[in-house]
């Protein structure tokens, strides 16, 4: 099942990178959103297979990380980390969306290439560096 998660993480990650490299910011925001999904699945895989590998054929599922549910619990730490991450990525997404709204209102565009020229510093000129004498 780790393989499944790995494939999912790979695909979602690839899609999110593709969107991040896109030309307009709405896609970028979605890319960031998907990015967190991929990361969560990656962390989740670190808790190992969700079942106990049996000696002969039988391989019972592990139990959720709640004390008293069974002998073999799933590793709780990745879950705690993901839980934190989900909430943080919610905050990041909301913030990013606000930035999108504000950017669109200020500049009238969401094209990455157009925005790049917006604040581009002027090319350096030699006149900027006046000879300093000691």
């Amino acid at each position: 099942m780790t393989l499944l998660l790995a494939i999912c993480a790979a695909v979602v990650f690839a899609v999110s990178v593709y969107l991040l490299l896109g030309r307009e910011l709405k896609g970028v925001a979605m890319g960031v959103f998907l990015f967190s999904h991929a990361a969560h699945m990656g962390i989740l895989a670190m808790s190992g297979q969700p079942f106990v590998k049996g000696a002969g054929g039988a391989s019972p599922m592990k139990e959720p990380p709640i004390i008293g549910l069974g002998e073999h619990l799933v590793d709780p730490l990745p879950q705690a980390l993901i839980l934190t991450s989900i909430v943080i990525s919610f905050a990041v997404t909301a913030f990013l969306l606000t930035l999108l709204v504000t950017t669109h209102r200020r500049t009238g565009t969401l094209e990455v290439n157009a925005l790049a020229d917006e604040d581009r510093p002027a090319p350096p000129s030699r006149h900027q560096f006046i000879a300093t004498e000691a």
Partner: protein
Amino acid sequence: MGDAGTLTAMLLVAVFAPVLSGLATLALPFRAITMRVLVAFAGPAASVVCLGSIISRFGMDEGAVGVPFIPSINCNLDLIADPLSLFFGLLVSGIGCLIVLYARGYFGKDEASLRRFYPTLGFFATAMMGIVLSDSTMGMFLFWELTSVSSFLLIGWDWQNPRAVRLAVQAFVTTGLGGLALLAGVILLGVTTGQWTMSGLIKLAESGALLEFDRGLLIGSFVLLFIGAAAKSAQFPLHFWLPGAMAAPTPVSAYLHSATMVKAGVFLLARLFPILAVLGAWAPTLISFGATTMVYGAYLALRSAELKKIFAYTTVSQLGLLVCAYGLGGFEYSHGGHSEQNLIWPVMQILNHAAYKAPLFIIAGAIMHLAGRKELHQLKGLLKTHPILAVIALLAAYGLAGGPFTLSFTAKEAFLYQIVHAAHENPQLWIVGVLAVFTAMCNVAIFVRMLTTFIAKPTAEGRLEHDAHASSDHALPHDEGHEGGDPDRHHHESGFWGACIWLPAALIVSIQYIGGIAPGWFGRLIQGIETHTLYWEHLAEGSTLAAFGHLVQGEISAALMMSLIAMGGGVALGLSPLFRTPVVDVFNGLFPGVMRSTEWTGFHLFHVLQSGNLRHYVAATLGALLVGVAAVAIYDPAVLEMPEWAPLGHGGHGLRIIAIALAALICLTSLIMPFTSRRVVRVLVMGACGFSVTGMYLIYQAPDLALTQLMFEIISVILFMLVLRLMPEEHKVKYHISKPLRAIFAGAVGLVIGWTVLHGGSIADQAFGERLMAQRNAQGSQVIAVADRHADGHSEAYMGGFESTGDERLGSWFERHSYEGTPETHGRGGGGKNIVNVILVDFRGYDTLGEITVLSIAVIGVLSMLASAPGVSTRRAGDDPEHSIVLAGPQPKLRSCLLQTGMSLLLPLMLMFAGYMFFKGHNEPGGGFIAGLIASVALAVYRMAEGREALRRLLPIKPGTSAALGLLIALVTAVMPLVAGLPLLTSVNTHIPLPGDGEFHFASAMFFDIGVFIVVVGVSVGMINRFEEELE
């Protein structure tokens, strides 16, 4: 208090008294100028008294005492009382006292300047005392940099003058970079030898164990330390900053840039002399740099016109001489049957320089102040117009020339004697002898020029200037300091405070003549602080004349001959018109040139690298990841092998089908996104992907995660929908697949991530499997421990050293301590059965605290940015609470009846469910986050169905306010245990029996969870509400 305690206290007072008294002057009111001077004077005076009483009470070799400061990086306030440190300490604090008085004479009644000057001066004095009294090498570095900072402040005294600021920056950057070299040297030496104190290093060197360390590392640290010393002591080619530093007020020049701070480099070499002089590189390095500096400085001094410039360059020259002297000390020769180092009276050399250079600067400041002239040729007839100044200046300059009956004479003889001695064994060192003679000639010539200028008839111009000053005596307002662009012109007064402008010079210069006229007596006085007193025999007779007698005989005659040549040549040179036109040091352009090219390069690099295009940054970051992975794969092809443990496994039969279906769904939904640009489709597909991930969490036995993700997904989709409605729709459908390069790049990154996940998961599996096997086979706790350790060794190697406690996985540690404590945690447990929740609110509660803070910050960002966006300037009146009721009735929007009816039923149910999840959270799936998100979803949908006013009626406080409130509750809960003396976020558990069978488990972490709950509700509802308001 024991002796060690007394010594520590006295040394600490000696170091910190100046800065404390300097700060104390800040507390004084204006118009208390005499008090101000006295308080400022008390600091260095206290240092002098402390050091003096250390000498009288403990003698010279009391040794080192330690005061811990930052022991983890070997940076301590270890102090040492040995001859070298005590001498330098007395020099610094003694001259410091006199400079305090001189500043009063120099600045006059300009109290605003004094108020600024004394604290800065005290700061410098403390830093300097710290350098000389430090035993810890790291501690010395710390004080070393502090002197650079204070020097910067003092050179840039005239902060409105761009030139002064530029020179201050030049001095600071040069000495600061030298300081970094020093730090590297100190660390290298410390790591190589394991010694972080000077006394330890000296002991090591004395026992001969030092040379057993790696010679290359020792030489490396020597070179680094020498660069630090050379930058501070203005050695060629880094000497340029010192003449530039003369932009400072003259008290500063006299104190920092002649007598004390520039000696720090020499002091460092003196400290290192017993440690590193055995290295073969010591002598050639120091001699070549020192001699070059010496002669170059002397030449430039001769070609300068301005008094302060002249003295600055002679200072450079003298510093070169001192470095050269320590270099010559690196040679050994046999004397009286045993081997001696070729170093003669080094401490006297240093004292000698301070004793004529400080007075020269003081007088230069006084001359500029009283006569208003900066350049030497303008000072004709000074002897008549300002006899006291002229006499003191000439007395000091005679010391500079090294004439007989001065301490300087003895010092110069000692230096020449050293050269002669070394040259007997290495004939090429005669070159140094020639250079030394030329240097001495220059010094004599400067004296002769001063003498002839001062006794010449005053020119009309000079007299006029003097009169002008006299008449302006009363014209200047009292509190006015700087007049025009000349920082040295000040109002002058008479009486004791007026005399302060020359009195310190007279006191200091007297050392020259006491030492020169009675060398025997003086020699005995300072013998205790000398380390190398070979020349002593020749001085012990009691007078310079007797010394002459000895000098004429034997090998010393060569030194005397050189001295005589220098004097004769110097007089001739001084009278001749040669070398009179001023020249500018070519190295003055070095620093500005380097700065300019650095800025220029940086600007161009910035322009190339910072394109401002998001796509470039993303590509660069991920490209670096790919390159790194490729490099690892080439270096270690094993990472490309398939993991051993079959990743698909054989278990979870029924669930496997579901898992495969879910995975297919995740992949498919996400893959649709690039192929469509219709925003509704995209958001829905994105949501579908998220819901499939939720299913995956369930398969991985993570109910908490699944619940959170579900709610989060709902809120996110709502958010996206709202925001996208605020933006224009795309013009037409674009198929981005026409960018194959982008797709290949993204695919490669995805592959790398997937591969990493696969390996990570397999390692975790392997660890679990090995633990299980050990458990089944041996059933002994020891074996489990071993297997745990083994397994963790693997995972650590791959997971970048994820820290585990003892022999077990971090997860199992949480598992054991989640509910009940063990002796390991002093019997304290988390008191909850839901391990994930306990981790969040207890074990890693600090993280959670940070997290909800981030949430609150995000909501602040959202609310404030939307408020400030230009579009909001056309706000409707409905946003104001006063007007909102008026507009509440006729809603401009059509609302879904279905949604309204549904929500009126669902809202109470969902809120109740949220409450249930909240209270259940500590022992079963649930908790503050989940409950908060459920409540948020309920409220958000309710808001959509019923509008703003309905929400406002339901929630009396604003969502933003409630986020702040929740954060406050969480913070208070976190801090409360501190009041009881427990660590932050400690949880207290009790069980409250309930009627009937049950009991209510209560943990104080619950209040923390309440805080989390309120923050989550406030933040998510606040955001959604705000976006909806934007739409309305």
